């Protein structure tokens, strides 16, 4: 046991050192920074909790928070939901499974910036793909990015981008289920859709839980797609916490206030991950 402890210490040290330097130290610095008013990176004045008071009263920050939560809802439901359906379907086929696996996974390898640009060109009013199709069909152009629709329009590429990731996790989980279970279920008369609800999903629930936690925490990090497609607009209708933090910290050089928004993002991410874990807590299924 003593020997084990040495190995544990030995192998964990590099990871601790690296996360310490690149994650915990900047995070502590970030928290400290949130108590300062900064202007142009060089002038810092200690202002206590004024940044937090400002955040509490900031209407745009509130809108960005609600937009982030709304986006989280869509992304979690549709990314994990679609990934589950696709994984079950691909698992059910014998021919062409490899093709579908590659196709569904493909968007993951495209950078967010490229997908953002792609969808900017799809939604563009004057020369965008969708409106060009409409004009060629003799129809009027449609303004795709309005105050009402912008968040949904940003959610679409976000979901598409990461469905493949959860698809692969869930497909691997499904494929690990021994075939005996299905054979036994068939003998018991369980068929078709019942198999999915009574067998597949209960057996992969721990993987589903992981996917949901990843989707929830991942949504809080959304930045580039929103920044490129709508720039948080029109107005602040699609502003999310990531884009608002970037604007404050880097465009306005208000690093202190940007750091305060970053603290909110971290607190929110940790709380949501904790709540999700608690809500989805269930005995692990082993087979």
């Amino acid at each position: 046991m003593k020997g084990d402890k040495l190995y544990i210490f030995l192998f964990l040290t590099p990871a601790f050192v690296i996360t310490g330097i690149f994650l915990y130290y900047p995070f502590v610095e970030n928290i400290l920074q949130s108590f300062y008013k900064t202007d142009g990176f060089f002038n810092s004045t200690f202002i206590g909790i004024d940044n937090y008071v400002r955040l509490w009263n900031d209407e745009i920050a509130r809108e960005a928070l609600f937009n982030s939560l709304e986006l989280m809802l869509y992304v979690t439901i549709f990314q994990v939901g679609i990934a589950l359906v696709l994984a079950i379907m691909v698992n059910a086929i014998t021919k062409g499974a490899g093709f579908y696996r590659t196709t569904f996974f493909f968007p993951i390898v495209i950078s967010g910036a490229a997908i953002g640009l792609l969808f900017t060109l799809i939604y563009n009013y004057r020369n965008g793909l969708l409106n060009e199709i409409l004009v060629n069909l003799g129809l009027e152009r449609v303004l795709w990015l309005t105050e009402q629709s912008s968040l949904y329009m940003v959610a679409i590429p976000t979901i598409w981008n990461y469905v493949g990731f959860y698809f692969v996790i869930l497909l691997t989980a499904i494929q690990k289920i021994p075939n005996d279970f299905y054979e036994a279920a068939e003998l018991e008369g369980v068929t078709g859709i019942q198999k999915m609800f009574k067998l597949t999903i209960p057996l992969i629930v721990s993987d589903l839980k992981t996917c949901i936690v990843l989707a929830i925490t991942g949504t809080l990090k959304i930045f580039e797609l929103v920044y490129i497609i709508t720039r948080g607009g029109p107005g602040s209708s699609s502003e999310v916490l990531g884009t608002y933090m970037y604007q404050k910290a880097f465009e306005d050089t208000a690093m202190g206030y940007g750091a305060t928004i970053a603290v909110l993002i971290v607190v929110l991410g940790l709380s949501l991950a904790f709540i999700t874990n608690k809500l989805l807590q269930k005995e692990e299924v082993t087979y």
Partner: protein
Amino acid sequence: MKQFKWSLLLVFLFVLISLVACSNNETDSTPADNDDNSEGAEETDTEEASEEVDLRVVTTMAGTDPAGEVFQEVLDEFVSEHPHVTIENDSQSADAGTIRTKVNTDFSSDNEPDMMFYFNTVDAEGLIEEGKVVNLEEAEGIDLSGFNSMLEQQRHSDGNIYAAPQSGFYEGLFVNKKLFEENGIELPTTWEQYEAAIEAFAETDIVPIAASTEDSYYVVEHYALAAGGMENYTAELADQNPSWAEGLDNIKKHADMGAFTPDAATIDLAMAQELFKQEQAAMIFEGSWFWGQLEEAGMGEDVTVLPMPVYADGGETGEIVGGASQGWFISTKSYEDEAKRDVVVDLFNYLTSEETIVRIAGATGQPPAKGALDDLPAYLEAGHQLVSDAPAVALPINDRIYPEAFTHMRTSVPNIVSGNTTGEQVLEEAAGMEE
């Protein structure tokens, strides 16, 4: 088992020592770190550094800026004449203000460039106050002779000069003459003609004004100028000058008249420029650097630049936004590095020599800070005429007010356009941020 454990420990130690040793080698080979070394080592390192000097230069001459290509040629020529020097051209486009973030991050993380061509405005205040850049008048070997009045425009409030100009710029209303002629619309030289042009183009498939209401830097400035004239345009933000609010409200008025493309709130500056270059829009608010893009698009001859029509009492059409807001800075860290100083001074004098300045200015057609451009095409001449005829010239608003306040003003334009807020309210909020 115990032996294996110790072998593993040894391997771990070896890897750790190798990593440390490798990083030390890298540090020693960087001339910028000579100051930290002991005296004995310093002598050896200085000798090595005099053989090889690595410089990093940050400018805004990149991306769609046609000066970028010429600037790289100029750097290559300097390097070929100084074989022991290597220069990393770390330039980045000025669009969307990311260059500000880059420069601020570089300086605050002790990774400053040796020289930079940057905004000598409110953006450089922190750098100057912290002593991060050199006072050029006191720097040994720096040649500041031969500049026109643009050099004096660089003088800081503390009386020193920290930046040497390269060229001036002007902003204005770029209009596609061809589209105006084809549609029988008069060029907008008065406010009434400007509004008439918006109305007339709005009835066609041509967008009257190519603009992003989110990235509305130039739109905000020109509408404030039109509503207040130069006297009010140069007011402080704290004054909450009513003409600024009126200017912001005029943007909504014109948006309602169909002045902008319906997705103006979500497109960026580059997209707006594309609309104009593809002749889908008749007018655009831009700066003199835009000529380079127009020439590349082969439409220089079809375009002319006009001053924003000013309708305010006491104001005069012809007053323009412009000046020389960018200049060459030398970082103090680099200047104080014995191994780099001579090369940095040489490079500075080379880049600010009349020959180089005229050559770079020639790529964009902007008025040079030394010498003059010859054989300019008529459309560029018109731009230079605009400057020489201007009764008053002032720097852009965002060059002199608190960045967060200006960002709030420009990013609130879509909300003003949609009727969610008013110019007065936005101005009040922006002034509150500056406090």
